[in-house]
């Protein structure tokens, strides 16, 4: 980021007293809408300066949780704490939050400066101080010189930066982001994500980010809470979520996975050994603690952890190449395989020589990278 942006960040931080405790805590939070339970006793604690992502399919309760943090909704049970204070009965406008909306919600009847200054004006900040901080935050989001534009005159990416500036200028205890990238095209999205994360780190502002896009969640977050049906299924770093999913839902929802039919071969310390064909792979024992030895299990393996080989009969499994999908940096190969729970296996390999070596229709063996993958009792 450029120098102006750095100065902007410094000026902003300087003007704000640091919060002793910026953490947000949800404690057994329950929310019902009529008959449906949107959140079912959700507990999660977000550390000061942390970038926490709530990830899940639509209807999983992630947005409800965010709206509870913002105070747009009131919980039916449990407690919400911001900076150690109980927020259940505190209205939105007294919560010291910054929020970015899916459609940005820039006030159409105000220009950029008016939008950004709104929160300061409401707080009775003097005109001079307001101008100084608006300038600083616009520098931070690289929109110096756009103060007099109206929201309509801005591109999607610029609107988003104004929305971010508006949320940050009041130095919120917590920054709430509601699917802010969903309206941007793919290229812009990637660069805005990097920019957002840089700014978030620079200001060290506690952030709760809601998305249904698992790749966004993995690339941005310090920690991810994977949600489904009003509960948190797994809470962990992106790597933990991706490499050690705790159940079938998380394993399927986050990243691509293959499901192979296998058998529990034995237990070795904290690992379980799974047999697939003649191959043996080690997986975490924890999800299999109720499974008897030699019982059938489903092995979830990432496409990059499967390896294609010519030795069709001396490896875990094999099949017929159905299609290659050239992705530029890598190749996705779909293989018809009888050991797969789905019709086809997906193998991801670098380099396009794969396509020449195993053309569509050829027989190919599949071996497994040991130590990668996770198994669950058969569904």
């Amino acid at each position, binding site marked *: 980021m450029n120098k102006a942006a750095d100065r902007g960040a410094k000026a902003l931080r300087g003007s704000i007293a640091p919060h002793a405790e910026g953490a947000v805590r949800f404690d057994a939070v329950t929310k019902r809408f009529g008959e449906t339970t949107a959140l079912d006793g959700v507990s999660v604690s977000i550390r000061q300066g942390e970038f926490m992502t709530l990830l899940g399919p639509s209807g999983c309760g992630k947005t409800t949780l965010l709206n509870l943090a*913002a*105070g*747009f909704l009131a919980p039916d049970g449990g407690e919400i704490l911001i900076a150690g204070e109980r927020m259940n009965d505190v*209205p*939105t*406008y*007294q*919560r*010291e*939050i*910054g*929020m970015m*909306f*899916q*459609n940005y*919600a*820039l*006030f*159409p*009847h105000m220009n950029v400066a008016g939008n950004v200054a*709104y*929160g300061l004006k*409401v*707080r009775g900040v003097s005109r001079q101080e307001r101008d100084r901080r608006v300038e600083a935050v616009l520098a931070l989001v690289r929109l110096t010189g756009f103060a007099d534009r109206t*929201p*309509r005159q801005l591109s999607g990416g610029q609107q988003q930066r104004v929305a971010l500036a*508006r*949320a940050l200028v*009041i130095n919120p205890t917590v920054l*709430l982001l509601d699917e802010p990238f969903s309206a941007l095209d793919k290229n812009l999205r990637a660069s805005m994500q990097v920019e957002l994360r840089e700014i978030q780190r620079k200001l060290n502002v506690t952030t709760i980010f809601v998305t249904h896009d698992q790749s966004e969640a993995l690339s941005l977050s310090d920690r991810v809470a994977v949600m489904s049906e009003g509960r948190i299924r797994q809470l962990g770093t992106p790597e933990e979520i991706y490499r050690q999913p705790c159940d079938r839902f998380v394993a399927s929802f986050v990243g691509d996975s293959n499901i192979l039919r296998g058998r529990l071969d034995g237990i070795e310390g904290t690992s379980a050994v799974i047999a697939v064909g003649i191959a043996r792979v080690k997986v975490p024992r924890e999800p299999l603690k109720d499974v008897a030895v030699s019982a059938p299990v489903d092995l979830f393996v990432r496409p990059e952890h499967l390896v294609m080989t010519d030795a069709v009969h001396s490896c875990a499994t094999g099949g017929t190449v159905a299609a290659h999908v050239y992705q530029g940096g890598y190749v996705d190969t779909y293989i018809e395989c009888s050991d797969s729970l789905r019709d086809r296996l997906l193998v991801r390999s670098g380099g396009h020589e794969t396509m020449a070596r195993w053309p569509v229709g050829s027989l190919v063996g599949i071996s497994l990278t040991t130590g990668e993958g996770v198994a669950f009792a058969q569904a």
Partner: protein
Amino acid sequence: MPRSTYQRLLGVIGKLAVVLILGFLVLPAAVVTIAAFNDKAILSFPPQAWSWRWFAKAIAYQDFRDGFRNGLIVTAWSSTIALVVGAMVAFALQRYQFRFRKMLEAVLLSPLVIPHFTVGLGFLILAAQIGWNRSYAVVIACHVVLVLPFVLRSVYVSLRNLDQSYERAAASLGASPLRVLVTITLPLLIPGLVSGWLFAAMLSFNEFTASLFVTAQRTQTLPVAMYNYVREFADPSMAALSVMYIAATAALIVFANAFLGLGKVLNIEQSR
């Protein structure tokens, strides 16, 4: 590609139908307009000679002048009161769940199904009872009741179309509910409020049936004055007045459209 005769015939019939419908719609206005320029002192059609004199006479006629002035007073008050009341009720209906909500809505929209003369008669009886039957108050009150459903509907629809996230954004930035209302909600609702007011004003200014019951000689509005005139005279000054009526209303609509069109651009494009 050459079109078949059949298709061409269909096209001609279609165009003809559109022209006929449009012609039928503007027919009364056209007849009145032409009659207004008739030099003779009778409402005949088509005229033999042309003149502007009925316009001059209509403008000079004292009952019309008073009626116009009364109409403006009644319209300004009634549509403004209806706007304030309607906006508040629309807010309540749109934002809050409460007992009798459905009933309130039904009652407020009921003037749409109750005939105007019933409303007028009702107000006349009430006003006579308390001795207000010669006052503006009863005319205004009656008009408020008649135009309220339209204002209510207009504000209600704009409120429903207002993206909730603007108000939420303002609240998240620390604005109290009152501040959100004044700095965000009302400015964004201006197109809806203005169109509601204009619609109410036009209805009120043109209202005849109920006004006939509740106005006295001193408070009679322009449509009532016109009715009283046409009962005694049948010269083209009525037609001249109608032409002025049409021109004024059309000008108002054009103005409003330009203004509201702009407002809509401001409002809608952002919310996408």
